[in-house]
């Protein structure tokens, strides 16, 4: 997984020998539990994340920190904190173009064909764990610009557990980093000046999205959400234990329409978590599909 955050800029130089066997051990541990792999060129990012966590824990050497991660009573929570350090960088809009290409070329045509046959012209998207809103705003811009959706309506639910993140998403003020892949034309169309070299999502863009606090572990609320066509839940489930992950993914399965798609972060896998979803390889990305009614896999119990 290529990890690109603002930290790429602030810690541009490698800070330790990539051959340090302890760092390799931590790298392997992170890969084993999350699938996130730091190549030698990216190892410095892992090392700086570890260094920040070591300071926070009061641990002096990376060797002690590895012990802390593997044998300490608090190892589970520390692992989660380290993963937070690694994955929750500032993200940016239009970060993963292959996902949008897959939506444009494969997923939307497929879903729209199925819905048209039923006389339906409405699509529902859900960004589950939207953090500070970059993902749902990207989706809103992308869908608004898609000519194939002319004559269709769509709505986007953007949810997060963290109320601070959700508030930031609702406010929708972003700096250059978050907007780095947003074209000038889109900036003019969907944003207004917010001072301090920042832009704020305008009402047109905000009107496309409904922000709501959703706890993915809240069964009663999860059961209530139905008829979603595409769910995005990127880098959220890596912090869940297997049993909770299974429960949440089963909910997502029920939330989706038959033939609907589910995107995880691109290092995340449902292997041994759920075998009802079908893994679909699309150009440069992967997604999970709830099998359409009538397909062989769709008839599986």
């Amino acid at each position, binding site marked *: 997984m290529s990890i690109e955050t603002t930290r790429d800029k602030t810690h541009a130089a490698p800070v330790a020998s990539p051959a340090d066997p302890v760092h390799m051990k931590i790298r392997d541990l992170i890969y084993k539990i999350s699938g996130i*792999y730091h190549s030698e060129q990216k190892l410095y990012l892992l090392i700086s994340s570890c260094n920040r966590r070591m300071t926070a824990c009061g641990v002096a050497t990376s060797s002690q920190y590895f012990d802390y991660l593997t044998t300490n009573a608090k190892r589970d929570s520390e692992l989660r904190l380290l993963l937070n350090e690694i994955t929750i960088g500032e993200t940016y809009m239009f970060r993963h173009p292959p996902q949008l290409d897959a939506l444009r*070329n*494969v997923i939307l045509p497929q879903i729209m064909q199925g819905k048209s046959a039923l006389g339906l012209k409405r699509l529902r998207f859900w960004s589950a764990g939207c953090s500070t809103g970059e993902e749902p705003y990207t989706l809103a811009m992308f869908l608004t610009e898609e000519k194939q959706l002319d004559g269709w309506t769509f709505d986007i639910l953007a949810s997060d557990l963290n109320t601070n993140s959700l508030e930031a998403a609702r406010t929708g003020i972003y700096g250059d980093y978050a907007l780095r892949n947003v074209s000038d034309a889109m900036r003019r169309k969907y944003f207004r000046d917010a001072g301090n070299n920042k832009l704020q999502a305008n009402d047109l863009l905000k009107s496309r999205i409904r922000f709501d606090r959703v706890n993915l572990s809240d069964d009663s609320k999860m059961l209530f959400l139905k008829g979603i066509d595409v769910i995005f839940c990127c880098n959220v489930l890596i912090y869940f234990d297997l049993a909770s992950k299974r429960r949440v993914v089963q909910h997502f399965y029920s939330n989706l329409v038959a033939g609907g798609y589910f995107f995880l972060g691109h*290092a*995340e*896998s449902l292997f041994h978590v759920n075998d009802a979803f079908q893994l679909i*390889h*699309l*150009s*440069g990305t992967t997604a999970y599909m709830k099998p359409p009614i009538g397909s062989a896999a769709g008839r599986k119990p």
Partner: protein
Amino acid sequence: MNEQQATALEAQIAKIESIWTAPPILVPLIEMMRLPLDDICLEKVVEMVSHDAGIAAQCLRFANSPLFGRRSVETVRAAVLALGIGRIRSLLFGVCMHRTIPKAKWVLDPSAFWRHSLGCALVTQRMAHGVGYPDLEKAYLAGLIHDIGFLVNSVLYTLKLQECLKHSATNGCPLHVSEQEILGFTHADSGRLLCRRWGLSEELVEVAGCHHQVESLSTADPLVCLVHLGDLLCRVRNLGYGYNEVLAVALAEDTAWKHLVPAYPALAEVDLVRFTLDIDGSMDQIAALVDSVFAPSQQAVAKGI
């Protein structure tokens, strides 16, 4: 492809040696490819690789790639010892075939073609390793040569293949579909005939001939299935033929997968997301290796790498 087309194609392929510009070692190399690895003499391989300084240099670049383990190999003999006869034979084949096609006859971008072929070789071999397929070098070679028919079509039907490529690039459809529409046959048909003409093993003939048709086979050879899956995986990870192919592939629902699972149950234990990420991790190295071997930069040439 009907019988008449097959006869015509076979007649064209019989003439191909007079059109392309094979290095002198291609013929003995093809002979060597018919042999089991145990019957091949190391000295003979060293001699063959050393015959042409350019080919020897290209083989050394392969041998020094991190893709095959970080080594510092300076002589052909060391390269053969380090990589093994099977791998050297495969890469020598790639290098020779690259030289065999006249520059003006390349329809596909040579870099894209070799990235795809080498990528497929590595992915097929890794998958073979993952499921416990016994002959990893055979898997590698099968992945490398599966699309050899494109080279035949490039040489014999240059303009029509260009048309196929344009059609596929415009429509985002697989190249073999355009070939079928425009040429009336595909690179798989030409590949099968060439491999048969060369006297390669029936398994390799099947790989070249059936890697797009696994679903129509009642019993598919595991090697064909592995290459079929390797080819698909490369094409969905941007190692296709240099145009944007619109693909949505459920590998675990694929016929090849279903053929393989009973004989190789370990396949069901492959986490395809992780496997794909591992392949992605090798993409840059594959691209760098192909570029250094088949289109060496001036800097590399000057250094004599």
